[in-house]
């Protein structure tokens, strides 16, 4: 019987992996392609959630699901043009300080506009309910999150690895000067990458708002976990983030099964272990400017 329960935790862990993947994917994208350590990623996630709460009563959950990631992406464009742009080539510590400040400004703005108390928000009635596979239970909404995460990953992969756009971006990561010498301006590409990365944070915010508390500090709550996933996966590695998210989900689930107080600590231990064995992360690539 214990084996069945453990198996159930493993499968659920994969589902939870989608949750971690959603919050880490955009972060990884901006990190590996722009070299920006975006500490404001959690804040953009929170903005996505607050937009969902504000928009859903007017245009429905489906409308908010489409509109808020786009609005957050537009916010991303603004932030890139005003701030990120100046820091691609400077010491990462500068962009770190910049985004840390941004995170505090956004969190405090949310607090001033919406108040500190969590805002009520639920799963839309049509998406409620559970699916039973044998005796295993899967909330329908988590399966939807899983599906959306898969779609987001596939679309991002296609864009970065199978289009002309992606080729320029990847070349820019390795050698921006050479890309410039070939007569290609990297700036619009980087704006697009920031928009996609930050838009993905907004998407995570909309999707997770129905199952977690919507309050100003919700971004800070998930930020560390998102970083852990990116670091375990390895810089610049697309598949690494996916593997890391699944791994964190499963390891955390099993830890909670056997020794719950270490539930959250398990991902940090995992990170320490991975970094000891593979300092660049599970599937990390060698990127000149980060060495």
């Amino acid at each position: 019987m214990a084996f069945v329960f453990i198996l159930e935790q493993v499968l659920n862990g994969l589902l939870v992996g989608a949750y971690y993947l959603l919050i880490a994917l955009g972060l990884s994208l901006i990190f590996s392609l722009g070299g920006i350590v975006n500490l404001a990623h959690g804040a953009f996630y929170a903005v996505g959630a607050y937009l969902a709460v504000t928009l859903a009563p007017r245009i429905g959950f489906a409308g908010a699901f489409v509109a808020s990631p786009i609005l957050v992406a537009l916010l991303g464009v603004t932030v890139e043009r005003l701030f990120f742009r100046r820091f691609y080539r400077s010491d990462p510590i500068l962009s770190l300080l910049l985004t840390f400040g941004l995170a505090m400004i956004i969190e405090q703005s949310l607090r001033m506009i919406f108040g500190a108390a969590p805002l009520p928000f639920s799963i839309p009635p049509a998406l409620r309910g559970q699916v039973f596979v044998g005796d295993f239970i899967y909330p329908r909404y988590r399966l939807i999150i899983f599906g959306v995460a898969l779609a987001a990953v596939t679309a991002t992969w296609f864009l970065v690895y199978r289009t002309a756009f992606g080729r320029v971006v990847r070349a820019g990561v390795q050698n921006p000067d050479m890309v410039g010498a070939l007569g290609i301006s990297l700036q619009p590409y980087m704006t697009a990458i920031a928009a996609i990365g930050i838009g993905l944070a907004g998407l995570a915010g909309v999707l997770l708002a129905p199952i977690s508390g919507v309050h100003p500090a919700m971004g800070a709550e998930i930020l560390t976990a998102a970083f852990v996933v990116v670091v375990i996966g390895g810089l610049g590695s697309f598949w690494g983030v996916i593997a890391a998210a699944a791994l964190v989900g499963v390891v955390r689930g099993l830890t909670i099964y056997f020794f719950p107080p270490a539930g959250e600590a398990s991902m940090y231990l995992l990170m320490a272990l991975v970094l000891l064995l593979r300092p660049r992360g599970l599937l990390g690539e060698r990127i000149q400017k980060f060495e």
Partner: protein
Amino acid sequence: MAHSDDLTRRTLLKGAAGATALAGLGMPAIVKAQSDVIRIGHLTPITGFLGPLGEFAQMGVQLAAEEINAAGGVLGRKVELVMEDSVNPQTASAKAERLIERDKVAMIIGEISSASALAIGQVANRTKTVFINTGANSDALRGESCNPFMFHIEAANSMMVRSVGTYLKDENMIQGKKWYSLTADYAFGHDLFKVAKKFVSDNGGEFIGEELVPTDATDFSPYLLKIRQAQPDVVASNLAGNQITNFIKQYAEYGLQFPITGFGFDTAVAWGAGQGNFSGIWPLIWHHMVDTPSSRKYVEAFTKKYGKPPENQSWGDYNSLKIVAQSFDELKSPDPQKLAEHLRKGAKFDILKNREGYFRPYDNQMVQEMYAVRAKEPEKMANQWDIYEPLGAVPGANDDLEVLAPPKDGTCKIQA
């Protein structure tokens, strides 16, 4: 060269003029403040996972100050609040000292975290300044950590447990039942679980699962699967702050049907859960449906000012300031020593409940009525604030108020 020289001189002149203007404005304000206002320090977490409650605390204390000043102030002087974010125990301690030494506050109100309340309590004791704790529940603050200058209008954990416990017994949810609990993994949770476990065991219930949940956990699904496997009769939450919001949202998501209860609770976290997510029976020190004349008046004034009803945290800070104002008036002096003596002598106060409350001299705990509420069916909720129905007040009208208070086990040595 001359040009730039000129600019510098002009800038300098402007600066000097500005400084003079500021000084002119600032100086008299401070002199005035010292002579005819009474300053009260308010120190509570505004950021972090207790921030949502801290915001209600500030709203409550500000409303009280407004009402007091509108009615002519205290001893003919206006009340002026000095409000700060307590952040964590170290900051709380430093800010408490600053409020007392620099801002010369007459006393301090606030706090929600038990660890920070302990730190402020120590400063209060050392400086002989009254501190009224409005939100920290740990029994230890009323036990080995008690001191003559720290007062508690907030209920102790054991009071919360006994109030909801009374109703759980009525509903036949304890005797012979299997319990599964989730507990916030820090001082408050451990303290609460200890008291809750004793109560449940003493009344014939049994814990088949006791999980500690780190305060940074946002996904509860692995815990929910374990609960489902264990098939308990009752699921009990000893969680705190935003944890409760996340937990009840995901409990509803997984569609688990075991009845929920909890021993620590704040209305704000349930308001924040959303339609169809909140369920169970929960304890409260006060709620906006308590039906007494003073309570109705308070709810009306609060709703008018802030556009939403007050919750239990704003109750504590509102009443604390009212108690202090009333005491200073009765004493005809804002002297902290006299205030402490007055409160410890058993002065009674209208705290928006049926029966008046008083601080008992054993541990400075306010002895008072407590409440429990039951979540409403989603279809019966009139609006987003209407999420539960009151189950009544404990102790019963003819019982001694002190039956709920923590046992006088001799760990608090104020009187010795």
